[in-house]
């Protein structure tokens, strides 16, 4: 029997909010509708597929770095290098023009944010898209750190998307090897204290300032343990952080050559690998992590360590808790967490099986509206409710920024907060209501009945109080604004 209430829970809690008509289609079997979208993706959403490749981002990033070096008093060194490579002064000069880069990064970022939001608005697989957002936030790479400014969109596309609904171990590996993560969490600046590069500094690569890294940088290793796998209480020590940092020394990305940076010839990019293992920077010798010794040499050492971290019981518990917090409640019900944790362990980190267990948990369907939607999700809900497929003017990036969640710009490596306390602030509620009103005014039409739109979007979750408020509105625009501001539109 069709169940509109479960359909509304499915559409809001697991998806990104329904478009008109969706609830009836989902109502036949809401659980099956969710589950059909949990597997690996067939293809990229078209909005994402047309974004430039990561190689292109790395070129832009490389140009920016070189400019910084030139403007930071290291111009002479860059010029020497250019001369050796037969690059003219004029060609080099193009790199030192700041405005081009600012413009370039702004345009890139705007395009990528727009693509992410439009892919979500138009998606026929909103449950899957939500999972992309979840995992992309779990493995945060953010423009808030300026050196990583070019990289979060390609990181999400190349390291996260292919593995959503796949195996966690593969997503962890893809994340740890992507230039976005390697730059964001400084692993490109890390060298083994006893490595060849440390013994003979001239062989080492330069850091962004122009100097050479001199030792371990623990940043990525620490966050892999604390944020990506075991969790902060997952039972590791500072010695484990150092061991993992040593294990992944040399995990870096292939720097474009100066010749590529000054050239417009796209063919120069061919053959660039994104990830590179720099054997000279790798700390030699076995390392002991969580009581287990990794005697492998080279990159195999890191691959083995990450594979073990991915299947560690602490990882299962940490991920299960985080998933249940995201989908069910800020204080996730322990029975659901236990079920999801077990599914993760029993399937050896199969993310589809893990999510199946979450969707099968009765708790996931019991308390509607327990979660407060984050601003991006809230904006997407409103846009889908009105059946838009592209971002209307005024509802774009500036509005998301004002509401406190410009995509790809999470404040720290722990990503956007997933609890109401962070988002239910006076100013952020005010900003989202400003957005809701402006957007309502833009799309209001005489033939759109706000109360009908509310029923189509919320089904039985549309409260009597909200319906009355919407029906008593003095104009369609006000009715829509009240609908968009109603508690059940902001919660799931």
């Amino acid at each position, binding site marked *: 029997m069709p169940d509109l209430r479960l359909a509304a829970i499915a559409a809001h809690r697991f998806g990104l909010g329904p478009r008109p008509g969706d609830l009836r289609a989902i109502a036949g079997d809401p659980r099956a509708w969710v589950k059909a979208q949990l597997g690996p993706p067939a293809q990229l959403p078209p909005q994402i597929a047309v974004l430039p490749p990561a190689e292109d981002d790395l070129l832009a990033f490389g140009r920016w770095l070189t400019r*910084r070096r030139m*403007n*930071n*008093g*290291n*111009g002479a060194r860059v010029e020497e290098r250019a001369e050796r490579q037969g690059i003219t002064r004029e060609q080099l000069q193009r790199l030192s023009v700041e405005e081009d880069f600012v413009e370039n990064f702004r345009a890139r970022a705007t395009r990528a944010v727009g693509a992410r939001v439009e892919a979500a608005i138009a998606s026929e697989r909103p449950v899957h898209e939500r999972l992309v957002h979840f995992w992309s936030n779990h493995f945060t790479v953010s423009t*808030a*750190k300026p050196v990583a400014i070019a990289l979060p969109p390609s990181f999400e596309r190349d390291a996260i998307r292919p593995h959503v609904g796949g195996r966690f171990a593969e997503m962890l590996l893809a994340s740890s090897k992507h230039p976005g993560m390697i730059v964001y969490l400084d692993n490109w600046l890390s060298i083994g204290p006893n490595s060849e590069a440390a013994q003979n500094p001239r062989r080492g690569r330069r850091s962004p*300032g122009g100097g050479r890294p001199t030792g371990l940088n623990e940043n990525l290793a620490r966050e892999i343990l604390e944020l990506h796998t075991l969790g902060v209480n997952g039972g590791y020590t500072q010695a484990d952080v150092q061991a993992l940092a040593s294990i992944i020394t040399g995990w870096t990305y292939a720097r474009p050559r100066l010749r590529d940076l000054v050239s417009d010839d796209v063919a120069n990019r061919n053959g660039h690998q994104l990830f590179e293992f720099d054997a000279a920077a790798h700390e030699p010798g076995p390392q002991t992590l969580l009581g287990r010794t990794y005697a492998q040499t080279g990159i195999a050492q890191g691959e083995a360590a990450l594979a073990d971290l991915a299947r560690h019981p602490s990882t299962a518990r940490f991920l299960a808790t985080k998933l249940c917090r995201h989908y069910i409640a800020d204080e996730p019900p322990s029975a659901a967490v236990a079920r999801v944790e077990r599914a993760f362990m029993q399937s050896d980190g199969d993310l589809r099986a893990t999510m199946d267990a979450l969707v099968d948990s009765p708790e996931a369907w019991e308390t509607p509206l327990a979660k*407060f939607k984050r601003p991006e999700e809230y904006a997407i809900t409103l846009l889908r409710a009105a059946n838009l497929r592209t971002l209307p003017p*005024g509802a774009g990036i*500036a*509005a998301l920024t*004002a*509401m*406190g969640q410009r995509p790809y710009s999470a404040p*720290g*490596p*722990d990503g956007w907060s997933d609890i*109401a306390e*962070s988002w*239910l*602030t*006076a*100013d*952020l*509620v*005010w*900003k989202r*209501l*400003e*957005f809701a*009103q*402006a957007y309502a*005014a833009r799309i209001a039409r005489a033939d759109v009945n706000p109360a009908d739109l509310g029923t189509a979007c919320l089904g039985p979750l549309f*409260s009597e*109080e*909200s319906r009355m*408020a919407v029906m008593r*509105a*003095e104009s369609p625009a*006000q009715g829509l*604004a*009240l609908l968009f*501001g*109603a*508690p059940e539109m*902001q919660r799931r």
Partner: protein
Amino acid sequence: MLHRRHLLAGAAGAAALSFPVFAFGQGQATDKRLLVIILRGGLDGLSAMPAIGDPQYAPLRGRLAIERSNALVLDDTFALHPNLQTMHALYRVGELLPVHACATGYRERSHFDAQNVLETGAARPFARTEGWLNKALGALPRSRPEMGMALSAQAPLILRGDTEVSTWSPSTLPDVDTDTMSRLLALYQASDPALAAALNSALSANTVAMDAGISDMNAAGPRNLTPVAQIAARFLKEPNGPIAAVMDASGWDTHANQGLEQGPLARGLAGLDSGLDAFKTEMGPAWVNTAVLIVTEFGRTAAPNGAGGTDHGAGAAAFLAGGGVNGGRILADWPGLSRSALHEGRDLRPTTDLRSVFKGVLADHLRVSSTALDRDAFPDSSEILATRDLFRG
């Protein structure tokens, strides 16, 4: 932005027109107020507070050395940047205490990590998720609904934690219709207490902000702190308003062509100085009970780089201003600028731990207990003692 005329015409009602009366009745509420201004990006302390009397200053700074004749002289060794005129006037009446060669415990050079340490009060980055000011406010008697106020959409890390704080920031979004807001408030009051509380708080804040009569909030920005500083003062003056407020000022990361008496850094300092002036004016008689703490995450390299700027460094300058501040002197254990005195041969060596200053402000201005300081606000820092003579009397 909510316009006052809308608000007065609207049905938001008198209840929303000021901070609600709130009496927990536990202990005496302090009449002291604190504004923290965080200069994000790393202020160049040797530009803001040049050590004109240090023999190494002119040779080391080269093209970025400010002439004694152009600087606002403080004492034999130190001066202020010519654009810090309000600060200079405050110094002369004993209400400004400049702090030099200061830093947190962090000695690396990442903005990201350094701001984290500055705001959490911890010894290393990402060691905790709460801010020291939030924890300190939490140790005071809870005398109002929101003890702190962030002049930003989300509370900055320094204000994050269990203690209730409110948020307000200028809006770039279109004006709202007050009738719609009051209908939503009624709906929330009937069905969603958490949303009702947030909207009520936002309506109060916007009323105060509008009442301030700040004509051109659109002009607010990194180089113009005045509108937001005035509103901060309005919040702090409200009878049931916050005890402490925090505002951010960005744009201090001067890697290239920072300029001397003119240029981007000079404009930034002028904006900071007039912001402080506007804040003091707006506080009026309450200035005697007010302290302003101006801090940054780290200083910059002592010598200019090849691009006419300075890179991320260590020892920084900070400022404490206020009617009760024991100022008119410099708080610094000056390490000197000779090459051997510099930290790692490049940065002003930090000799004053900022946490001592923070603790001193919290202890002697807001009367936060030393237990709360060492246990909640700055855990594992009991060996770092509060500076005890920051305030008169």
